[in-house]
């Protein structure tokens, strides 16, 4: 399949280590943020979301942190596995949910070394 990771920032981690992927968002009025994972040849897959009234949210092996002061979002993946290798995108939705357009940040390609 095609690669969606060309010319993207790359993060390389050892299997079992924790990964941290960072993202700067653009619209200070946005109140809803999402992380998507995209494997080669596939569409973006929802990982976790967070609203602006929170600064941290945890899922299974993943944690999203939101710093509204500096418009920064991060995704932490615990005990990274080879199956986590993909391109990760943060997205914001100024309208807050299902309506409106998602604005995607630059992706980060995560490579997990066995």
């Amino acid at each position, binding site marked *: 399949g*095609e*690669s*969606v*990771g*060309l*010319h*993207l920032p790359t993060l390389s981690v050892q299997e079992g280590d924790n990964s941290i992927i960072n993202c700067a968002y653009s619209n200070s009025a946005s109140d*809803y943020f*999402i992380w*998507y994972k995209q494997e080669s*040849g*596939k*569409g*973006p*897959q*929802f990982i976790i*979301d967070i609203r602006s009234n929170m600064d941290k949210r945890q899922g299974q092996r993943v944690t999203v942190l939101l710093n509204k002061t500096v418009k920064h979002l991060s995704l932490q993946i615990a005990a990274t596995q080879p199956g986590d290798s993909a391109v990760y*995108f943060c*997205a914001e*939705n100024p309208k*807050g*949910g*299902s*309506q*409106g*357009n*998602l*604005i*995607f*940040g*630059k*992706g980060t390609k995560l490579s997990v070394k066995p």
Partner: protein
Amino acid sequence: DAGVTQSPTHLIKTRGQQVTLRCSPKSGHDTVSWYQQALGQGPQFIFQYYEEEERQRGNFPDRFSGHQFPNYSSELNVNALLLGDSALYLCASSWWGSTDTQYFGPGTRLTVL
């Protein structure tokens, strides 16, 4: 529970031709959004359909048009294809009144020669 489905998977066209891409939303969803993803880039919003009407549009020319059917499925049409239209076209579905996010299909890879 079927997720978002798109057809065809791959498509090759020549400059000047027209193309139609199709999307069926996830069960229970009534809103369809279309995105264009160039190689190495994040998806870019094209437009969103709800109740068979275009509700919001991104910065794409009128050559890009769409339609939503009563069963919530949708089509994306692109006329007068240009080489720069080569991309992965993604459909995302959601429920209009929900605070939930949009869920993506696998995409259609369009190549314009």
